[in-house]
């Protein structure tokens, strides 16, 4: 049965004459499908003095086109139960949604218009500006977000695109003009920066043909690329953000690591799984949650990108336990960096990651995200079938070398947001 993905994916891929890439995969999960339109238009491409512009554009892009009002767009989507999600990261801006298979053509028609002919009406810009400022203010009251943003800046510096806050700051958002939005849109939204993926209850050939029809007439000059600047080596700085009324302190602790295309990627992925993912949260959770009962959540996350991504440890603890928790994180980081993983940890982790590949492909949205990653990094249409072999090729020595190259408490940066006066001694 072609629509079952039990034996692996079998996507159809086309490159249109204007450079747009189209990928379609049929599934039999339900009579619905996920559409994902990713443009290389993320925050990396913002002017240096326009922090948050890409994020803001994502909030205004679906609020009017040359031929459709904001209400008409809302009608086209809302009436079908469709919620358009726009996510903006360092490199990509992705518009995605799920719709009934029967609504595919109508929804694609709206999305195609939105990405090609967004008009950015002034009244919509003003509404969404106040909304984004409100969200930034809300974030300022969130210890988890405060700690994460502060760590990002400690690791990459203010000037690096990976170090800047994706949503911008109130003062930058206040300055955005319609011309800024039009310039970013014209500069980055072009067929050559688009990967369009459709996954779900429509035959792949039919889905690809519909996407082709929606975009093949689009002509725009291919924008240039922008390199990721070199990442400074972080200096091991640790800071506290005082939020006196909060019952719990949030810790963000981490390092800069490697890029996604580094040959050591799979070893780093396994190392991070051992440190802070396996089971409840790897070695970190075993120590800080299970043995010491200090935290409900503690884990590590590894987010490699075109440039060296961060490896970040997160935990929420009682303000009186901050120093103890930091000492425990330091100890686990040092132990894995110095002594490496055990044979059992290595075997279990490899088996787990290989076994989890079908779960990555459990939903249409999961498959679309998997295919977007594969396309962005040029991993190939057979990546889901090759992934197990790539993981099997990693050795314990590779994992230990990855740990030794990153995990040194002396170079870890940390940001703690919570009541500063209550921090206990280690």
């Amino acid at each position, binding site marked *: 049965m072609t629509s079952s993905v039990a034996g692996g994916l079998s996507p159809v891929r086309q490159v249109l004459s204007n450079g747009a890439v189209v990928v379609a995969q049929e599934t039999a999960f339900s009579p*619905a499908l996920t559409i994902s339109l990713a443009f290389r238009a993320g925050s990396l491409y913002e002017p240096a003095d326009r922090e948050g512009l890409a994020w803001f554009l994502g909030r205004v892009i679906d609020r009017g086109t040359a031929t459709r009002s904001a209400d008409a767009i809302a009608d086209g989507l809302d009436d079908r*139960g469709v919620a358009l999600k726009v996510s903006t990261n360092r490199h990509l801006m992705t518009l995605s949604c799920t719709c009934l298979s029967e609504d595919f053509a109508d929804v694609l028609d709206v999305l195609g218009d939105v990405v090609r002919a967004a008009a950015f009406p002034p009244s919509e810009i003003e509404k969404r500006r106040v909304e984004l400022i409100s969200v930034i203010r809300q974030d300022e009251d969130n210890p988890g977000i405060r700690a994460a943003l502060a760590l990002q800046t400690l690791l990459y510096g203010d000037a690096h695109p990976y170090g800047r806050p994706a949503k911008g700051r109130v003062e930058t958002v206040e300055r955005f003009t319609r011309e800024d939005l039009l310039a970013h849109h014209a500069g980055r939204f072009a067929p050559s920066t688009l990967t369009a993926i459709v996954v779900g209850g429509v035959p792949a050939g039919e889905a690809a043909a519909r996407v082709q029809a929606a975009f093949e007439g689009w002509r725009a000059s291919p924008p240039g690329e922008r390199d990721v600047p070199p990442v400074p080596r972080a200096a091991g700085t640790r800071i506290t953000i005082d*939020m006196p009324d909060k019952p*719990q302190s949030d810790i963000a602790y981490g390092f800069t690591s490697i890029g996604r295309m580094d040959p050591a990627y799979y070893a780093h992925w396994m190392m991070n799984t051992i440190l802070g993912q396996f089971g409840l949260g790897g070695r970190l959770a075993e120590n800080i949650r299970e043995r010491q009962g200090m935290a*409900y959540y503690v884990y590590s996350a590894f987010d490699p990108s075109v440039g060296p991504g961060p490896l970040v440890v997160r935990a929420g603890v009682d303000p009186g336990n901050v120093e103890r928790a930091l000492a425990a994180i330091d100890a686990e980081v040092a132990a894995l960096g110095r002594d490496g993983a055990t044979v059992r940890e290595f075997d279990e982790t490899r088996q787990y990651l*290989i*076994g989890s590949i079908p779960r990555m492909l459990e939903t249409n949205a999961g498959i679309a995200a998997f295919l977007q990653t594969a396309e962005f990094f040029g991993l190939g249409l057979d990546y889901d079938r090759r992934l197990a072999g790539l993981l099997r090729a990693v050795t314990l020595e590779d994992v230990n070398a990855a740990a030794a190259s990153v995990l040194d408490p002396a170079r870890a940066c940390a940001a703690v947001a919570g009541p500063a006066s209550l921090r206990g001694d280690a």
Partner: protein
Amino acid sequence: MGKVRTAHLDNGLKVLIKELHTSPLVSVWCWYRVGSGDELPGQTGVSHWVEHMNFKGTVNIPRDEMKGIVEKFGGTWNGYTWIDQTTYLETAGKDALDTLLFIEAERMTNGLYEPAECESERTVIISELHGSENDPDQLLDTEVTASAFRAHPYRHPTIGWIDDLRSMTRDDLYGYYRRHYVPSNATLVVVGDVDADDVLRGAGKHFGSMAAGAPSARARAAEPRQVGERRVTIEREGTTAYLKFAWHAPSATDPDFFPMLVLDAGLTGAKGLNIWSSFRGALPQRRARLYDALVERGLASAVAGSLVPTKEPFLYSVSLTAMDGVSLSALEEAADAEIARVRTGGLTDVEVARAKRQLRARLVFENDSVTNVAHQIGYFETIAGPDYLDAVADRVRDVTAAQVADVAARRLTSETRTVGRFQPAGRRA
């Protein structure tokens, strides 16, 4: 897609199986008809704490091996507790079926509840509570819920009150576990790339020899009718003001439930009915009544409605985040006017038709994986009984604009609501 196969073991364990051969996965959920609505004063939070303890080792799966047993099959595992139910799940490669049934059988009968593990988990749960209190909206939600109920145990938070979390003992936990974790109080749900006969054989092998136990007797106090508006205001450090309205909602089996679901979709956008997945992420709400009146007009940065199917009447709530620079009073006045408008005039035919189309789509979206299908089967079996889920789409379709207007008029009244306000200290009300 096959139908759900239903079987009962001799000890009363109900087994629901659905074969879905779209992915090489199996999802196993074990549901217990016990939740925080079954707790007594002084032991609030015991259901949730017991859930945590049931990941801390059994007679035949030492704690150290709990971690890793599902992962060997590439699987994920979790659990949750709410007012009517406690549930545990694993989704893994289909070859894991026998191991997953073994884990759930162990969890039902062989939990260790080592005293040191109980103590360690006490502080983990207090950390979970404090983490949620970092969020002003969550804090407000807890206070509004506690104010809205006088007698019914839905009033206390599922995680429990802090003093109870500090004082409960290992024996409290273990006694509760032994009372409620019995086959006659549970439903086992298996969905995925499996053979139903194999599942039944496995269920018999792992659960068949257990004693039935007594089903939980629910003795929940009835909530007296509210006779006047209640208000709660929290003032503390913060950057953002929040406003919340809560009314007493119909239970899942009340004839008002589906008209109310359509009403909520018209006011705030359709969520669907899957609390495991559908309540996350963006909603189709740009044409919704309250979004248009409050977000589009610059008074709120976010609006959310919540109507969840429950065994007994819980709450319908509308949560608003004030736009930067907008006072709570201005926001409340505008929200109040819109609610009065829907109370007196209901929704238009166009709005009702849109809400029903949205719900029809969301009911498809929320059944997009073996994990979600299994959740929905177990959830509705536990809170509403058999056959409920099969009828959901038809019952949404059959809702009329007159029914929506009727529930709005009867249920969104000022005297039966609770209003919560979170006022950032130092900012003008």
